[in-house]
């Protein structure tokens, strides 16, 4: 059985002023196997983050269901951990304090918190910076802390919401390779939301392409590039082929968006 099973998922929002109901995600079905790295890609407004937040249990479902290891998702749980976009670190806590935060919230009792946190900090390569505060770190380092905080609670599923979205192109590439290195050691099931095509291909076993109005899955693409991967595969023919396919999908979305703008 798949580890994550999403069936006929629909999420509606009520717009605060007009009271109009607006559907962020509709008729989404997806299964993710244990240990699989799945990226979710799509242009802005396609509901990809909403889908991820629903799996995290931070958004309530209007229709359908999400199951993790056969258990219905009704809220956040210790089987999942989220890596958010930047700035979700507590600015008054040190790197170690931040990595301990998730463990404290889960009332972790698997031994010494400090030791566990340091282990994770070393895993993401920040051993020397454990006493630094977030404002003393670069964007890339902050996201390493974010990843360490999520891994510390030893989740079954790692959920990542455009974690490298605020980083410059070069740092983003380095962080992608770094994430794969960590993931290969931690062996977690991963759901990773991005709008960056190269990132989506580079990381994935399986790419979920989403479209807009309302957010739905357009296609699920298997990625058969060999692992472990490094930057060299960015230039392979298979990679180019996948990139072309994804570009076509996103271009389609962009042109329909322009049409809407012209009509409006």
């Amino acid at each position, binding site marked *: 059985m798949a580890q994550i099973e999403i069936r006929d998922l629909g999420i509606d929002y009520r717009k605060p002023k007009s009271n109009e109901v607006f559907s962020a995600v509709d008729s989404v079905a997806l299964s993710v196997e244990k240990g699989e790295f799945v990226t979710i890609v799509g242009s802005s407004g396609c509901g990809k983050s909403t889908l991820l937040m629903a799996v*995290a*249990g*931070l958004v309530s479902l209007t229709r359908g269901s999400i199951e993790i290891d056969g258990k219905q998702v009704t809220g*956040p*749980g*210790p089987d*999942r*951990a*989220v890596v*958010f976009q930047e*700035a*979700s670190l*507590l*600015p*008054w806590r040190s790197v170690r304090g931040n990595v301990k*935060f*998730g463990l*404290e*919230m*889960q009332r972790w009792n698997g031994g010494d918190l400090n030791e566990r946190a340091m282990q994770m900090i070393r895993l993401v390569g920040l051993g020397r910076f454990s006493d630094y*505060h*977030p*404002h003393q770190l670069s964007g890339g380092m902050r996201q390493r802390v974010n990843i360490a905080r999520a891994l510390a*609670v030893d989740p079954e599923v790692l959920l990542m919401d455009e974690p490298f979205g605020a980083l410059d192109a070069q740092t983003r590439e380095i962080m992608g390779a770094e994430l794969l290195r960590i993931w290969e050691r931690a062996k977690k099931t991963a759901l990773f939301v991005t709008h960056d095509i190269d990132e989506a291909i580079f990381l994935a076993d399986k790419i979920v392409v989403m479209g807009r109005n309302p957010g739905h899955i357009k296609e699920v693409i298997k990625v058969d590039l060999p692992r472990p991967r490094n930057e060299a595969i960015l230039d392979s023919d298979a990679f180019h082929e996948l990139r072309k396919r994804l570009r076509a999908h996103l271009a389609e979305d962009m042109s329909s968006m322009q049409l809407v703008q012209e009509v409006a």
Partner: protein
Amino acid sequence: MIAELFYRRQALVLGTLSMIGIVVFWQIAVDTGFINPFFISTPSQVAAEFMAQFEDGSVATNVAATLYCFVWSLGLAAVVGIVLGMLAGWFADVEAALEPFIWFKYSAPTVAFYPLFVAWLGYGTPTIIAIAFLFALTPIYANTLSGIKNTDRDLARAARSFGARPLDIFLRVALPGSVPVMMAGLRLGVGRALTGVVVAELFGANAGLGYAITYYGQLMQTTKMMVSIVIVVVLGVLLTQILSFLESKTDSWRVDSNR
């Protein structure tokens, strides 16, 4: 960094110079007969009178009386302001219930309640503390409220994703995040508590700096009065600076603090 230091030093030098300038101008203006010393005294006379009052113990008596009321009023305002501010920041209903009182406090002068307090508590220390308490309460309450209420939503969501309960979010996210804003409220409260004490002492007291100011004022003894005025000003600056220092200690993690 160096330019900033240079600028800060320059600002310090200029500020000191302008202070000295005023004092010198004051002395000269009176010495040359430009201003009648009856209205304003002179720095040298005030200094001499300060030494006299210092030696006969009246400086100590007045400062002690004022500080006694100050400490009580600020302490009470801090406890009440922070507790109410936390409740109102966390529970929108509490905020709504308290809102009219805050409007009153902002729009009506607090001194207007003075006669009422006199009727309840009599002339003297309890009334002075009550008035100064009301003076100091508003900024402490308002800052605590806004600190808790404006808790970073991203941080709260991250905490929730790890299974944090509402109390966890309050204690581990909202509260520590509000400390700098609360300290700023306390700093404002210090200035207002001192103002409240001195103003209340002007109306009725047996000791204290405000009492000394009215007492000598009514006797037209300008020099003796100026001594207490200068002490009040210095005290106010000193206390506020102490709080500014403590404030800077608590918000070192803030990226937007431009220090």
